[in-house]
């Protein structure tokens, strides 16, 4: 047992029992981050802040929300939005943050792709990150159901129905997920549980693993330069801070992040108070009605690209039903990003996209294709729209099939060019 002496102060008292000084060093003052980074490296901290905002606003909403199909709509739209002091603020904050967090997730994710931060030792960062993306999607979907508006109900109807396409167990699986033959009260209560307990818990755990997975391979930098972190850290600690290639997480890295968070939240509160319809779809302010199908059913903007991959295959091919092809493509779209570190065959070489002769085209084509999918995912799938959707969905698959080939070619031609 450690030798406990009379403490010289609160910090010392804690340090003798919890080693808080060492802990602060490990987590903050001697956690080294490369200096050569830009504001895109602040997206992780922006995500943490947005997630905290979601948890806090969610706790306030939870005090008045009633998970019951007869009470849910009014508990949100009357009790919270009108009766409770500043209840509307918490709801707007929660709704807007849920939408904006996906924008930041996509920026974070494409930053990782662009700078090659998913391979050569950083695979676990990528895998835990993509797992987080998956759970965040489930969290968003389950949360969207809770106000029990028109789109809550019909999105639940359409999305749970998708599982029916899984061979053999499909129809039974749909009933198991819904807890009823239809989307009904049992569906709402179980998605409520997922939204407020199981999924947030899983997210918090995974965030911890995601952070931990950064420790060994370290954070990447703008040039994907590899250097000895211990040597650079030593330089910094010796006072040669300008010369060192690293900075400590606290206060240097975070001081920049706070500024970026400030800019992001300034815009965020503008959206919360004056421009929220993109995140709080007006149609969901009509109560759920299973007798009245909305003219247009579409998911929130962040699911549109994968939804369009599903819808894109709209005609039967060689006796295989369009629906089945779409489902297979949808499944492909939802796992393929996870496999990115293993599809990139230029395994020994990390470089930002603009220094990779083929990958740079691949990257921008992917960005453009996903934007086309996103926009056409919302439009009615009729006439030329259906064909644009088809070719964009096909391109998405082709891009990922081509990735191992073009990265292999890059690896063969060797190194930086």
């Amino acid at each position: 047992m450690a030798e406990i002496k009379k403490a010289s102060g609160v910090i010392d008292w804690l340090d003798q029992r919890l080693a808080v000084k060492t802990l602060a060093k490990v987590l903050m003052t001697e956690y080294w981050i490369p200096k050569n980074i830009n504001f895109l490296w602040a997206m992780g901290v922006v995500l943490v802040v947005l997630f905290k905002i979601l948890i806090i606003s969610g706790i306030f909403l939870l005090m008045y929300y009633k998970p019951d199909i007869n009470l849910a709509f009014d508990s949100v739209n009357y009790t919270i939005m009108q009766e409770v002091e500043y209840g509307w603020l918490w709801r707007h904050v929660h709704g807007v943050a849920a939408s904006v967090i996906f924008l930041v997730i996509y920026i974070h994710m494409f930053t990782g792709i662009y700078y090659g931060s998913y391979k050569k030792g950083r695979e676990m960062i990528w895998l835990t990150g993509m797992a987080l993306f998956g759970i965040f999607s489930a969290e968003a979907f389950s949360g969207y159901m809770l106000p029990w508006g028109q789109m809550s109900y019909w999105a639940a109807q359409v999305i749970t129905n998708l599982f029916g396409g899984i061979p053999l167990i499909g129809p039974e699986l749909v009933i198991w997920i819904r807890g009823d033959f239809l989307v009904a009260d049992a569906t709402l209560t179980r998605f409520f549980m997922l939204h407020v307990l199981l999924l947030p818990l899983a997210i918090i755990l995974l965030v911890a693993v995601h952070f931990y997975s950064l420790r060994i391979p370290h954070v990447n930098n703008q040039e994907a330069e590899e250097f000895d972190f211990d040597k650079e850290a030593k330089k910094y600690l010796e006072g040669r801070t300008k010369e060192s290639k690293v900075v400590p997480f606290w206060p240097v890295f975070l001081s920049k992040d706070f500024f970026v968070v400030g800019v992001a939240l300034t815009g965020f509160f503008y959206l919360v108070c004056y421009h929220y319809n993109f995140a709080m779809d007006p149609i969901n302010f009509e109560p759920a009605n299973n007798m009245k199908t909305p003219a247009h059913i579409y998911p929130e903007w962040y699911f549109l690209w994968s939804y369009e991959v599903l819808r894109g295959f709209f005609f039967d091919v060689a006796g295989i039903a369009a629906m089945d092809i779409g489902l297979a493509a949808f499944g492909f779209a939802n796992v393929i990003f996870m496999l990115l570190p293993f599809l990139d065959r230029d395994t020994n070489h990390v470089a930002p996209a603009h220094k990779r002769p083929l990958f740079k085209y691949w990257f921008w084509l992917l960005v453009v294709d996903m934007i086309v999918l996103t926009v056409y995912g919302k439009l009615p799938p009729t006439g030329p729209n259906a064909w644009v959707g088809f070719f964009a969905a096909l391109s998405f698959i082709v891009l990922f099939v081509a990735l191992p080939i073009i990265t292999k070619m890059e690896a063969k031609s060797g190194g930086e060019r």
Partner: protein
Amino acid sequence: MREFKILAVVVFFTALIYWGVEPFAHSQMHPHVAPADFAFKDLGANTKAGDPKVGAETFLSAGCTGCHGVAVANMPSPMDAAAASGSFGVVPPDLSTAGLIYDKNYLAALIKEPTKALKVQHKFNEEKPHPMIAFYGIGGDIDQEIADIVAYLQSIAPQKLGDKEVFADACQRCHDMKYDKVFSATDKTALKAYMGTLPPDLSIMIRAKSKEYLETFINDPQKNLAGTSMPRVGLNQKAQEQVVSYMEKVGDRKKAERDDLGYKLIAFMAIFTLLAYLWKVKIWKNVH
């Protein structure tokens, strides 16, 4: 410089996605319709000058009071709400305020040919007549008689009404506003059978449909929602604005608070950002 270039790229793609899924997608899903027409030009104009005194007598001879009450003229409704719901499907309106809230030309056209003015010809025909019977005249010039009735209704109407009262007379025969504890007098079962579906509660319809949509929709429901059983009610511009203003008061009660708080939150974050920037510059001076 590099950071600004990167920022420009991020902002460009974000703006592109936003434009695509919001303004562009909505323009494709909800095609633009012609602005509200408060002159009801499709109905033509009754150019006759009406005489309210003559109109009072014509009104009685025309049989209007068989179904309608006129409270301001001490003419109560001939039936109570339950009996009226059973007979007509919906409680016929009391006509005390009709001269104030409905357009003059519209009223004249309505009296002459109800289904045309209401735009419910797709629902009612000779086999299934509309509960309001067309006025066929009492022997003289029918257009003059109608002009007189309209002049009479205008003469008895109050000078002005509150927003909630306009809503009560114009909308509440079918629609509830439960967040303001306002409920239709019509029996729900009868109403559902009459309309084909229960007309929606309008408590937060302002959030669901937006002011712009309601502007053209209330003026002519068929324009935005072809085939709907909601009739064109013929409100004049002022009355319609009052209805929308009431819907906003009930459905978006915290709008003023939200607009006011927004500035403060943004200002707070702007100050935070400025301080964070100064701190960042101070800290990074030692490492760059």
